[in-house]
């Protein structure tokens, strides 16, 4: 076993430190007025952090270093957590990579720093193995969320940020109350293992209340049906690059925590082994989660159909997509995890290409109809947006398909056929609005140029910000087609759950 591989196996906090360091350095450069340098610093740090995590995820397990190396109640490496971390850091890198044109000059580096710090908080959130750590990182992620929405700098973004904040505050209060019940009343300490024993001592209803409160807090952050109200406004008004990270990076982190906490810790598969008595007191959880998932799929898809603005439509489709993730949550195979990753790349690619299109077509009002003919004028950005739309629908040859297939397979393993069918019908309805975007990109004639503009100069005003969208699109297609040949064992490598 080469030396570098052993060291790599135990990188622990290195990626987080690199990212945080990059953020601080960026801020310093910004103070000196060097905005471009600041941005480059932050994105370089994020890139390095993500590559570290990817390397750690791909490197085979080393027997003596336990797969779950717990560093102060936070699992940073090993079976899947580094895979998650890679996704979060890489998406942060892509968001910052766009140069955050849509954010005002003054706070551009600030937003970049926030994204970097947000990624750190996200990694910790995913790896949290202790309720206190979970709570603090969750709130850190929430704060980053408020700031990213407010970074839009328009009256509308302020309004959306205010509403998002109010709801966040109420959710935090609920979370604290949850802590009070689970840690306080249970008395088992904040670690997950202690928590479970503590819950066992509680009466059935109290245990249910505790877990439900924790579930609500996480459910709010991932934007599932009853707690979704903030998502559409936030995505519509936030600057597209910031929204890209908000919708993908932070949501994946919250989803990872949700899956690990609710799916695994309280999930039937694990719990029945550890503590059968608690397992059947918490049995209603799986039904609640299935209910939430169905409600979000139905609500998200239906309302998205009505939207005219692309970002707002993506907001609603985000609600539906999280619904799909919850379908396979309590199954053994990493269905929900893989779905979270593929969804993140899909929605990130969408927002990044919107960012590129917005900077290339300033007069575009963000509406679907406004995109008419964009396929001809800005082929690269349009291609990325089309790929993201296909991936979000779950059309084969895109990564989205494998995510959905495995999520539904998980759902079937959990005997939830009715939910899988709702999910499938939902993804069919989803082509109603995703397809409309593709149709207006490629098929509709652009109004002012008219059908006969013929082969206009293909280059068009191709701004520098389009390369992140392209990178994301390429990854989507790569992870869509490679499994066709090699089969799905790459999933177990990256997401070893």
């Amino acid at each position: 076993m080469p030396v570098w591989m052993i060291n790599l196996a135990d990188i622990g906090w290195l990626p987080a430190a690199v990212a945080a360091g990059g953020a601080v350095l960026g801020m310093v450069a910004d103070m000196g007025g060097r905005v471009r340098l600041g941005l480059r610093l932050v994105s370089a740090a994020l890139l390095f952090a993500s590559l570290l995590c990817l390397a750690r995820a791909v490197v085979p397990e080393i027997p003596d270093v336990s797969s779950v190396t717990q560093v102060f109640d936070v699992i940073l490496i090993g079976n899947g957590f580094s895979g998650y971390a890679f996704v979060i850091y890489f998406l942060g890198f892509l968001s910052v990579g766009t140069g955050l044109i849509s954010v005002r000059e003054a706070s551009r580096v600030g937003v970049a720093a926030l994204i970097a710090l947000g990624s750190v908080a996200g990694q910790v959130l995913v790896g949290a193995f202790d309720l206190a750590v979970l709570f603090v990182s969750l709130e850190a992620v929430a704060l980053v969320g408020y700031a990213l929405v407010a970074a839009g700098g328009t009256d509308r973004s302020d309004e959306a940020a205010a509403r998002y904040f109010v709801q966040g505050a109420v959710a935090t209060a609920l979370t604290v109350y949850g802590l009070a019940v689970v840690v306080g009343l249970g008395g088992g300490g904040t670690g997950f293992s202690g928590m479970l024993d503590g819950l066992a001592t509680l009466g059935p209803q109290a245990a249910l209340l505790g877990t439900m409160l924790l579930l609500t807090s996480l459910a709010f952050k991932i934007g599932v049906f009853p707690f979704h109200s903030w998502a559409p406004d936030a995505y519509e008004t936030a600057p597209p690059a910031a929204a890209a990270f908000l919708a993908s990076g932070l949501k994946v982190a919250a989803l990872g925590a949700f899956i690990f906490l609710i799916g695994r810790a309280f999930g039937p598969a694990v719990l029945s082994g550890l503590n059968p008595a608690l397992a059947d007191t918490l049995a209603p959880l799986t039904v609640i989660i299935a209910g939430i998932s169905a409600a979000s799929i139905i609500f998200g898809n239906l309302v998205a159909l009505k939207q005219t603005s692309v970002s707002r439509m993506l907001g609603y489709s985000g609600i539906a997509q999280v619904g799909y993730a919850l379908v396979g949550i309590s199954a053994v195979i990493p269905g929900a995890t893989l779905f979270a990753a593929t969804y993140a790349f899909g929605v990130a690619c969408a927002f990044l290409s919107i960012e590129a299109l917005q900077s290339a077509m300033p007069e575009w009002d963000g509406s679907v109809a406004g995109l008419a003919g964009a396929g001809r004028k800005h082929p690269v950005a349009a291609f990325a947006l089309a790929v993201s739309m296909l991936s979000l629908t779950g059309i084969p040859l895109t990564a989205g398909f494998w995510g959905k297939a495995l999520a539904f397979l998980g759902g079937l393993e959990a005997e939830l056929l009715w939910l899988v069918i709702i999910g499938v019908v939902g993804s069919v309805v989803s082509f109603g609005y995703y397809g409309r975007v593709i149709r207006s990109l490629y098929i509709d004639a652009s109004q002012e140029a008219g059908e006969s503009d013929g082969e206009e100069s293909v280059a068009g005003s191709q701004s520098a910000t389009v390369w992140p969208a392209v990178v994301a699109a390429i990854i989507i297609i790569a992870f869509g087609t490679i499994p066709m040949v090699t089969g799905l064992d790459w999933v177990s490598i990256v997401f070893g759950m």
Partner: protein
Amino acid sequence: MSLDTVAFALAAALMVGGALGVALTKDVMRLVVGLGAFLLGVAGMFLYYGHAFLATAQVFVYVGGVLVLMIFAIMVVHRANGRPVLEARHDIGAAAIGAGVSGMLFMTLRESVGGWLPQSGTPGGPIAVELLGRSIVVFELAGGLLLIALVAVLVIVGAGERR
């Protein structure tokens, strides 16, 4: 009625009085006073449970910091049109939801909570050992969170176009 219960009752009264003040007043200053009273009540509670450091932290952070911040905010927000009259849409729906949530909490936790008399807690060992020992990570993370809050405020305030 031992001394402890009197202390508990005092702190509780302070909390409830302050909360009601916040909920019902029409005048903004009375709202701030109410909030101050509530926070003092909370500090009292911490004292009652024997967490002296916590009570002092509460007083410093909240009563000192947050209230002053709030006053500044009120002054900034209502600079133009004098002292605003605070109205509130007291509708039944909101009351129902509030009562529903608290009722739900109460009903579910009723069994697993002991007798009426509040037991005073044990002060426990030095907090620094705990903070820098077992939950060092949480401590660091709190620091990180504050950094994030700082950057966030900078971004939020700095982001808007200058009118």
